[in-house]
Each structure stands twice: as structure tokens, then as C-alpha cells.
């Protein structure tokens, strides 16, 4: 009979699991923490085309996050052996659901019901969006028990989704926020970017380990697979971008950004970048530096706050404090 094992966090599985668990949980957030209603005034000033683009990129992102939360992360988690890694993946899946919901929170706050319904209709009908989702989905659903290559393929698909395909959508809210428009929504997108960058790194590490498990022939097939999938998704992404961004004249900028992130996705997989380095729009680039930015405390929440580590005070702390007070006062400082 099968023996069931409990997850044991006292015995590290890899030197990075604990770290990534902590990183993931410490950046936990909820969409309701961000006062999106502040964007109402900014929203009213956007043109029709700008609004439409905004709704659609967010609609597209909602679909991808839904896929990732409902299928991608749980499927991969099912087939990863280590229990701590499973735990991290499931936590990440939960965050994907929060991401998916947060777009709706933005919609509900700023847009009319008709506009929201139209957007979700559009998501169902848009060929390019449906294509990339179904392509990724096929690898998630194809994972075989004990099939290392199929698991590797699913992980690659996941990294492409998280580190590459999201970014045609992230571009627009980051671009707007960089100019002081839709700043609260931008804040949410930045929190999502912060999460996705960790997810991409983690699944990328798992993929690299999975790759090591493959035999020579499988490795060769795997490498070909990565190239083919990238090329196919890249082509689809260019067309998707043209359709979304032509009406507001940003297509060119977004395409550069897509290539930039494709390179990042490859690096997460431990592979060499394939696209030439280009100058990405600095406003958007500065938007995704995932350090704490200086923010006006009264205006936005900032990405800097997180769950704290609790540790009690000790009696010897007071000896130290009292000694320091005495010494600093004695010095006259």
C-alpha cells in the first residue's frame, strides 16, 4: 500500500525552497488593499481608444491568470515530486487567482457593466488570445506520469506565460502609471509583476532541474521544443500587439518590450537570450524595477510593505539599550 508522507519543512529539499517560500508569502497582498477609486478621475480623462485598449489588455491578462491559477500551477504541482515545491506552487496558484480577481476589481471600479461584458465577450472571441492560451494549455494537460520531457515542456510553457506572454498586457498600465495616469491600477500591476517575476524564477529553476533529468536524446528534443514554441508564440504575440496597440500608436514600443521579456524568460530557463538588446521604453522599464520606489505616503500604497517576522523582546535587549543611551549621552551626542 502507498504510504502517505507529510511535508517536512525541517528537512530542506533544495537550498532555495525555504527562501522562495518566504519570498512568496512575504509579498502576499489582496486587491482590496489598493484604493482603486482614486483612478476614477484619471479614467474619465482617457479617450475611447485608450479605454478600450486598457480594458482589453486587462481582459487578456485575466484569461492568462485564470489559466495559470486553474490549470498551470496545479498541474505542474501534481507532477513535481517534492512536497515543499508543491506547496510553493500551490501558493503561487492562489496568488494567480488573486491577480485574476484584481483585474475585475479594477473593471468594477472604473468601467460600466456594458464595457465589462463586452470585454469578457472579446476575450472569448479574440483569435490570438485564444490561440496562445490553448497552446500553453495543451502542454499543461499533456503531462505524463514519469514523463520527464512532458513535465519539462509544461514548465517551459509556464515560464513563457509568466515571464513573456504577460508583458504585452503589463506594458500599457505601466506606461500610463509612468505618466501619472491610472496610478492605483498601476500599483496593482506592479504588485502582480513583482509576483510573476518570482514565479518565473521558481518554475525556471524547476525546469532547469527537470532538464538535467533528461537523457541525451530527450535533451535535444527539449531544446528544439523551446525554440519552436518561442517562435510560434512570438509570431502570435506580434499580431496580438498590432491589433491592440495600433489604435493608440504604441505597437513599436510594445514589440521591443516583448523581445526584452522573451530574453528574460529564456534566462529564467538557464538559456541564452535570442533577441538583440534594444532600448526599452525607460518609463516602463523603471516601472518594473522591483525595488521599493519612493512614494507619496498619502497617495499610493507602495510595494514596500509586507508581512512582518515576529520575534519577542528579550531582557538583555534593555541592557543593550540602556548602555547605549548612557554612552551616547555621556559623549554629549
Amino acid at each position, binding site marked *: 500500500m502507498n504510504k502517505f508522507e507529510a511535508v517536512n519543512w525541517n528537512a530542506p529539499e533544495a537550498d532555495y525552497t525555504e527562501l522562495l517560500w518566504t519570498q512568496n508569502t512575504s509579498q502576499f497582498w489582496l486587491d482590496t488593499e489598493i484604493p482603486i477609486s482614486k483612478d476614477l478621475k484619471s479614467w474619465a480623462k482617457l479617450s475611447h481608444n485608450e479605454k478600450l485598449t486598457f480594458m482589453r489588455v486587462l481582459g487578456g491578462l485575466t484569461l492568462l491568470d485564470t489559466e495559470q491559477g486553474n490549470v498551470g500551477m496545479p498541474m505542474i504541482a501534481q507532477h513535481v515530486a517534492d512536497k515543499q515545491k508543491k506547496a510553493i506552487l500551490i501558493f503561487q496558484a492562489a496568488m494567480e487567482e488573486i491577480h485574476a480577481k484584481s483585474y475585475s476589481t479594477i473593471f468594477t471600479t472604473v468601467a460600466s457593466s456594458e464595457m465589462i461584458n463586452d470585454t469578457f465577450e472579446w476575450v472569448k472571441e479574440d483569435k490570438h488570445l485564444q490561440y496562445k492560451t490553448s497552446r500553453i494549455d495543451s502542454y499543461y494537460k499533456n503531462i505524463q506520469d514519469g514523463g520527464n520531457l512532458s513535465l519539462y515542456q509544461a514548465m517551459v510553457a509556464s515560464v513563457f506565460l509568466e515571464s513573456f506572454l504577460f508583458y504585452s498586457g503589463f506594458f500599457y498600465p505601466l506606461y500610463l502609471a509612468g505618466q501619472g495616469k491610472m496610478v492605483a491600477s498601476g500599483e496593482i500591476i506592479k504588485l502582480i509583476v513583482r509576483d510573476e517575476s518570482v514565479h518565473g524564477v521558481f518554475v525556471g529553476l524547476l525546469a532547469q532541474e527537470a532538464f538535467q533529468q533528461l537523457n541525451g536524446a530527450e535533451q535535444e528534443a527539449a531544446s528544439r521544443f523551446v525554440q519552436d514554441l518561442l517562435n510560434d508564440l512570438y509570431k502570435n504575440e506580434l499580431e496580438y500587439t498590432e491589433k491592440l496597440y495600433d489604435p493608440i500608436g504604441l505597437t513599436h514600443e510594445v514589440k521591443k518590450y516583448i523581445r526584452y521579456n522573451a530574453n528574460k524568460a529564456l534566462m529564467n530557463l538557464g538559456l541564452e537570450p535570442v533577441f538583440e538588446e534594444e532600448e526599452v521604453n525607460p518609463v516602463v522599464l523603471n516601472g518594473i524595477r522591483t525595488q521599493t520606489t519612493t512614494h507619496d505616503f498619502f497617495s499610493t500604497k507602495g510595494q514596500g510593505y509586507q508581512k512582518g517576522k515576529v520575534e519577542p*523582546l528579550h531582557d538583555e535587549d534593555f541592557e543593550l539599550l540602556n548602555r547605549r543611551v548612557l554612552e551616547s549621552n555621556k559623549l554629549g551626542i
Partner: protein
Amino acid sequence: MSMQLSNWIQLNNEIMVLKDGKYQFEKDREAARSYFVDYVNQNTVFFHDLREKIDYLIEHDYYEQELFDKYSFAEVKKLYEMVYQKKFRFPSFMSAFKFYNNYAMKTNDGTKFLERYEDRIAVVSLFLGNGDMKKAMEYAELFISQEYQPATPTFLNAGKKRRGELVSCFLLEIDDSMNSIGFAINSALQLSKIGGGVSLSLSKIRAADEQIKGLDGKASGVLPVMKLFEDCFSYANQLGQRDGSGVVYLNIFHADIHEFLDTKKINSDEKIRIKTLSLGVVAPNKFFELVEKDKDMYLFYPHTVYKEYGMHMDDMDITAMYDELVNNPNVRKKRVVARDLIIKIAQIQMESGYPYLMFVDNANEYHALKEIGRVKFSNLCSEIAQLSEVSSINDYGEEDVINRDISCNLGSLNIVNVMQNKRMKETVHRSMDALTEVSDRSDISIVPSVAKANRELHSVGLGAMNLHGFLALNKIAYESKEAIDFVRTFFMMLNFYSLERSMLIAKERGETFKDFEKSEYANGAYFERYMNTDYSPRTEKVAALFEGMDIPTHEDWVRLKEQVAQYGVYHAYRLAIAPTGSISYLQSSTASIAPITQKIEEREYGDSKTIYPMPFLNEDNFFYYKEAYDMDMFNLIDLVAEVQVHIDQAISTILYVKDDLTTRDLAMYYIYAQKKGLKTLYYTRTRKRTIDECVSCVV
């Protein structure tokens, strides 16, 4: 249609694109230039000459007619010419952008500029001069040389026909009655409408589960009141410009303290979550004593305290009364562990940045007006520490008893320019005059308690900014003994000259603040530390910085003490160190006396995003611009404590911590700050390490 990114934002963001491994600082000047050439100049209304401009602006209700009636046109022209001749240029995109985006007067439809920086300075100077041409010229010189900067509401509004108030900071006490809560809500709405930040003390409000009209368990406590205020502030949004800002303070011995803090927890229920309202905790020294001894502490139900003593809990010296309250069986109480509570505060600060802390006993111990009233809470930026008294708001037909709440008008010296121009006495005197003018001409009649306090106390708050900029420019490390040595002398001088000017105004007008004779200024107790301690520089390096400046000596202090006793003092409160947000950008300054947070700041403001290298930043001083997160916060507290000695109100002090810090570390900072005599701590900022940093050490 195309949505091209503007050239100046592009250039400004290019600072961060490394070229030969270096940031491209020169891009910032290009950005500032592009912003002028491509945007400001193109969008400024053109006038042939000054007269046409001023006539137009008066005629179309932009400027106040009465203001210009006080001067001849020749005088006005002379002042404008003097300001323009200084050939001021903004050294960075950020400073230019801040001015034109936030301060410059625009046409009614908001599309064209009507003022340049020089114009705004001229108008503010004429306004503050109030018909005195000599004074107006002095103010203009002070502003264009960037030695003193009035706070935003004054600088933004002075001289305009349609304008908000000149003061922006209000503190209101709330009594434990429905009338008073309703009155406070109305006041909060009114003050938000005119652009004020409002602080409210909730400590008198009865706790959840207390009696109402003698019926047990009927009261709902402070939480629903907080919710009401939160909604007020988001409703009153200054013509849509920016939501109102508010903070609520609660005494740590109030029975609702846990619920109060839980409103900011990440995982709290939507019903009780407070999103946009700021929180502050008022902590008497008794609390810290219980923490140190690891004792349990009692929280008190304030209504039972009031019924028993006829006095509100927060009007008492709780540290002195604690044992009495504990031993009185009629005072309802509950027991908690003191150390758990301080850890909880630390935990919630890490999650949300809040609460602010006020060390209320420190504020009352170093309080020259202690015989006149008690300091009970602070404001939205935690630099205000003044006495207040609750008003009684009665039913219709019955007279209200209006007592004193708090308003404050602020301004800051730019330390770099003050030290460079070496006329600190004149600078501080003029700055005090400018603040006094604002106080004299403010009458917040919609909130009578605020108007009354302003009438009787004439409080102002002069502060300083660009400390870290000054230190870096002179190659002094922020955490060094020279830095401490510098602030010790500088802020002693600020105190001396501001007090001297306050005395001179009292002498000129024959008027002091109300009850001056009961203050420690009158009986001389205030001067004790200056009689016994020499605050002149102790290191050669710092002595050299003050070369060519007169540092007040022991004899000067003795003389001032006598003059104060003879003529009195005009301002009940003079000094407060504000955090200086927008105005430090205008001045191309580091904020307040705080350390910088980033050598190159990426500033997210509600309405813009820009890259801002610290003032004077270059390869040479890169090292001296150590970032706050890399500093030891104990050193920061030591420096602030040294400044606090000379500041009659408080100092807005932010703690900067890395994310590997625990609640224990943070609690130790609070305790240290309390022991070192700080009056307040503002919020705590965390720098999250990036994932690259995390994984790169392991993988």
C-alpha cells in the same frame, strides 16, 4: 491618433540607462531644458509687458486687486525686475516639473501657464509684505536665493483671488458625545475642502461595550467613528485634486487599542479595514516602563474613568495616575501583556507603515507651556506638539464652549543656502516674519476652536531641509560625530534667532501669546540648558563650516533670557521639523533632516513619475550619500535627539528598515527613541530586497 511619450519624460528616464557603466546625470539637465523649450514656453500665455500681465490677471480674477493696490506700479516693477535679474534656473527636471505641475498658476481651463517661478515668488512676497515695500523686497530676495521656503499652502495660494487657505495643518480633539463627533465630522469636511490635513484625537471616546445612558454594553467604540472619518476624507477632495488626508490618534491605554491597530492588518476583514486613514498611537512613558519590566498592563475604559474622576483619561498624566486607576474598582479595565502590545505595533508597522508613535510624556516634559495646557496628540506628519483643550458642543439653543484646537503654518530653511550665504540671523528673522504674517492673516472661522487658538497663541512651525545634501556637499558622513556636531550648533542658532525675533515682535507690538507669564519663557526655566551647556562646534571641521557666522554665546543667551522676561514672546510655538515633500523638490533639496532613501530617486507621486538624482550628486560625493536603508537606525535616532533638544515642537522622523528586520529590532528602535527624548516617530519604511538579490546569493 498617437500617444507619443513626451521628450522630457523620456530624457529624464534615460538617466537610469547605464552608459559605459555610469548613470547619465547630464540627461537631467537636457530633460529640464526640453521641458522648458518644448512644453512650458509653448504653453505660457504671452504678455507684452508686466503691466499688461498684471492688469489682465487682476481683471480676470486671478490676482487680488487689493494686494496690488497696496503698492505703486513702479514698486511692483522694481520687485519683479530684482527677482528676474537673479537669473534663477531649475537645476533638475524634477524641480522644474514640480513647480509647473503643482504650483504655477494656470488658466481656468488648466491648459496654459500664467506664471513662472519668478512671478510666483514676486506675488508671494508682495502678499507677505502687505504694503511694506522694504519687507516685500527682503522676502523676494530670501525666496529667490532659496534660503527659506514657505510650505505649500502659502506658496501656492498667496495673492490669488480664488484660493485655498494659507495654512494646511489642523488638529482637533473630539469629546465623548454625539454632538462633538458630528461637529468634528463637519470640521474635517470643511478643513479637507480647503486643502487641510486633519488630525483627530479619539482618546476621549468611550470604548466598545461601555455604557450609554447607564445601559451596559451599548457603546460601539472608536472603530465606527474611524470609518466615518475615512469616508469624510475621501469625499472632500479639493475640487478633485487630491483626496483629503486624515489621521486618528488613540491613547495606548484606551480599551479599544487592539481593535484600533487591527484595522491596518493585511488580513483584516473588509468591514473593519481602514485603508486611507492614517493611525497614530499616543504612548505615555508608563507603557515603556511596563514593557521594560515585562509586566502586564491594564487598558482602561475611558467612560468609567471620566465618570469616576470628572476628567478624561487623556487629559491626565497617565504615568502618574496609572496605579490609582489600576486600584480603583470603579474603573473598568482589561489586562494585556505590555510586550505583546509593543510587538503588535511593530508587526503592524511592518505590514502597513502605521501607526505613528507619540511619546507624549517626552512632549510634555520639554514643554515651555506646561502650566498652561497639555500636549495630547500630534498631526498627520507628526511634527506638531502643542497644547489643546476639548470643546463642548451643545444642543441647539445652548451655547457651545469653544476651547483651543490646533492649526499650524509651516516653512523651512534650506540649510545649504543658509550656510552658504552666512546671514542666518537675518534669514531666520525674515522667515519668522513671513510665518507671523500668515498667522496674523489666517482666520479659520469655520472651525472656531482653531481660529481661537491662532488668535491667542500665534503658533508657527519653522523647520529645515537639505541636511543630508549639506553634509554630502561638505564630505561629512550622515552617521558621523561631525554631523551631530553640526546639527547641535545649527539648531541651537535656529532656536536662538527665532526666539529673538519672537521677542522683538512682542516688543514692537506690545503683545505676547496668551498666558505668556505662566510659561517657562517667563520664569526663565526654559533657558536652563543654554545657561549650562555650550553648543558651539567641538570639531575643527564643523567650526570651519561656521566661519564668518556669529554663533550665539553664553552671554547672548543670558541677554536674550532677560529680554524675553521683559518683553515676552509673541509665538507660543515656533519650531517644528516637517518632512518637506513637494517643497524640497522645488528647492532641489534632500527632504527635511532625513537621510536620502535612494541616490537616484524614482518618485511615485499620485500624479507623476520621475527620476530624481540627489542634489549635487557626482562621482566625488557618491560615497557620502549613503542610503537610509544602509544606516544604523540607532545612529539616526541619536542625530534626531540632538536636534530635538532645540526644537520646541517635534520632528517628523521616519525609520528606514530592511525586510530582514524583525518586530524585536523595530520595538528596540521605539524604546530607544523614547529613552533619547524624541517626541514622535513618523512611519516606518521598508525596502524590500529584490528577488535578484535574494536568489543570487543561493543559486
